[in-house]
């Protein structure tokens, strides 16, 4: 997820998509999807993952409302051990969506012309699924990205992403709560990156945010919060 928090006074965006995305619902839906896909091309995605890789994921969209916004680009990068495998990354641009507007262009900086020659939705999703496989997914407020992708996937293939997920924002809040129970923070992407000493690589490009997110995840995993840098 790579859009700024909504202006004050409106319903925070985080709640927008939570309404339709209860974890329990997800789990139930996954079971149903699995049975339906048992003989399909993507049955293998539903197998439990046994490797040691993760995939950091990020989408750029035309808006914040997961019911209407459209995908502009999708990026994913693999994480193995303590390395971010930028050499094994995916950076997909989709064909220009109908709702591409001035507002979102200001954020992701992908203009109409930049999306010329972009992929058709089905092709992009197939490539993405091949790349991520059944690896666990890592993202910044990943629920938003999942909601977006699932809407597209359901339309094309009739299932949602079954992968296990790690939300870096949530991971951070959880770890912070463990060491400083009294603090309640909602850091922005930039604040957390700075806090963890991670340079922000290409903010608001899908791949840049995916790589930064991957680095933040590695930092959190290596216990960067255990010894506060300040």
């Amino acid at each position, binding site marked *: 997820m790579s859009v700024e928090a909504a202006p004050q006074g409106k319903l925070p965006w985080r709640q927008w998509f939570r309404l339709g995305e209860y974890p329990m619902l997800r789990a139930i839906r996954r079971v149903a999807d699995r049975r339906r896909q048992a003989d399909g091309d993507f049955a293998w995605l539903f197998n439990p993952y046994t490797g040691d890789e993760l995939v950091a994921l990020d989408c750029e969209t035309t808006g914040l409302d997961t019911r209407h916004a459209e995908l502009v680009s999708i990026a994913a990068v693999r994480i193995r051990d*303590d*390395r*971010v*495998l*930028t*050499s*094994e*990354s995916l950076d997909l641009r989709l064909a220009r969506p109908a709702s591409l507007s001035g507002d979102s262009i200001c954020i992701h900086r992908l203009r109409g012309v930049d999306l010329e020659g972009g992929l058709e939705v089905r092709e992009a999703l197939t490539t993405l699924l091949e790349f991520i496989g059944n690896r666990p997914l890592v993202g910044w407020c990943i629920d938003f990205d999942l909601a977006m992708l699932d809407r597209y996937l359901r339309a094309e293939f009739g299932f949602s992403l079954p992968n296990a997920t790690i939300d870096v924002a949530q991971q951070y809040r959880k770890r912070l709560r463990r060491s400083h129970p009294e603090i309640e923070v909602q850091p922005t992407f930039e604040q957390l990156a700075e806090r963890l*000493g*991670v*340079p922000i*690589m*290409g903010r608001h490009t899908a*791949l*840049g945010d995916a*790589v930064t997110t991957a*680095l933040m995840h*590695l*930092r959190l995993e*290596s216990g*960067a919060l255990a010894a506060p840098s300040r």
Partner: protein
Amino acid sequence: MIDIDFTHPPFSLLDDAERERVLGGLDIAYYGRDDVILDAGQSGEFVFVIHKGEVAELDPAEGPAGGRIGHYTGGDLFGAISVINGQSRYRFVAEEESLCYLMPHTLFLSLCENNAAFSDYFHQRLISKTRLLAERRAEGGVTLAGFMLARVNECMREPLKVGSTTCIRDAVLTLRDKGADSLLVETPDGPGMLTKTDLLEALVLEGRDGDTEVGGIAHLSLVTVDESQYLFEALIEMTRHEVARVVVFHGQQLTGVVELTDVLSFFSSRSYVVSLQVEQASTLASLSEASQRAPELVEALMAQGVRMRFAMGMLSALNGRIISKAWHFSMPAPQRERACLLVLGSEGRGEQILKTDQDNALILADDQQWDELSADTARFTSVLDDLGYPRCPGNIMVSNPQWVGTLAQWRARIRRWVCEPDGDSLMRLAVLADASGVAGDFALVDRLHDVLIEETRGNELLLTHLARGVLRFSTPLTLFGTLKKPEHGVDIKKGGIFPIVHGVRTMALECGLRETSTHDRLAALASLGRIERVVAEDLGEALSLFCELRLRAQLAYRRDDAPATDAPDRVVVQSLNSLERDLLREALHLVKEFKASLSHRYHLEYA
């Protein structure tokens, strides 16, 4: 996502397609403080480029304390040698949290295979890398542009005018006295140009005699430029009209002449102009004016990518001329020719960059009577002071009777220093070993070196004492980033320059060499087989690099209008680019090895 600076070697050596491969082939890894990134003996699987952070290179074989070899920071590359050799010789540890790009060895080796220049970079010795540095600087062109934008009036000479009724004989005399090649003849029809060639042709080919008036020979059709035109325009005019000089006007007023040779040397180094000024100076005041311009000359030479040792040679020649002229202006005639004025220390070695303290001494001829000696030498010291050479705080100056004497007196002093080799005596011996003559009877300085060699030959104990000086300051391999305040920098004089200069000086003394410059001594030692030629070349190159970095710090300091003598000997490593850091690291490493070999040779471990 990969943010690598492609403007510096080795990555600048890659072509666009290869850069794309690099951008697409790198991974990113994060290392916490004290994480071992690559251990000794581990196989080299990646070449690392630091994006952010600091990494130390350690030699575990030398134990935890002494084993520091290098230090790397943002933009630096390490691990390439491990990939080439198959395994790492040293241990790389993150000194602080570090973010590195990892280039898989397969990608690195395939880049090496396809790109010879890139591959060479990792196999090259210091000497070829410094050449890269000089080339890059010459490409920089910023300062060079300053030269191209020079105006005519910065390079012109005063016009040498004679009346049209002057005879050829007088004209020739004028040319000789003024050291000029051409005259302007004022005729009723306007000024005319008269060159040496014109005179020669008139006398020889046309058979005129010396009493002919020059008005009839001069050329009245002049090639002219305006004072405010660019110098290169004057050069173009000369080329177009096939002449070697143009006349300069300011409006209607004739103000000067620009000679082709002056323009060419102006563009090549500007040194000629300064040295011309020194040669033409006929008073101390004009000499002082010329000597003020020396730093400007050095800066210009450096900007053009002139190799450091040549720049140093040029400057020390110039300083020598200035001191020699000062000697001529201020000393009585018969005395000054019989004695020999010496310059010592860095000046004697010809390795002085900006003017520093005066270090000088005087050898008197054996039977020389110089009644006003102490008054005269004191005056000379203050003359040099006025010229911009501050007095030596250690009082190594001709005004100190300790540094004046006949050869017999010098021999007695040297003998005493050799017998009682305490710190002072060793310092004096070292300073004297670098002595070069600048004025007077140069035969005396040769004989002084004979004396020095005779008195010290075969004295192993003395050599050991001398050599120990090399170990006096530690070589700052550790100072890169771990200093509390990095802006304090690395003391390049103590850590780099001194060990090389002093070590080489000690070896030179042992072998009875008469060379005084470190580069010449190294070459002589190499041809004697005392030191490997490769090592000698690299040490020379390391010395040049240190001098250059120090000079740059000093020039920067000068620009802030502080006196050059307090100039810092420290180089702030963080202000260097990654190529320079790479070179500095390698050069300091060479110094460390050189010190180790000296301490083996002179048994310093036991002393």
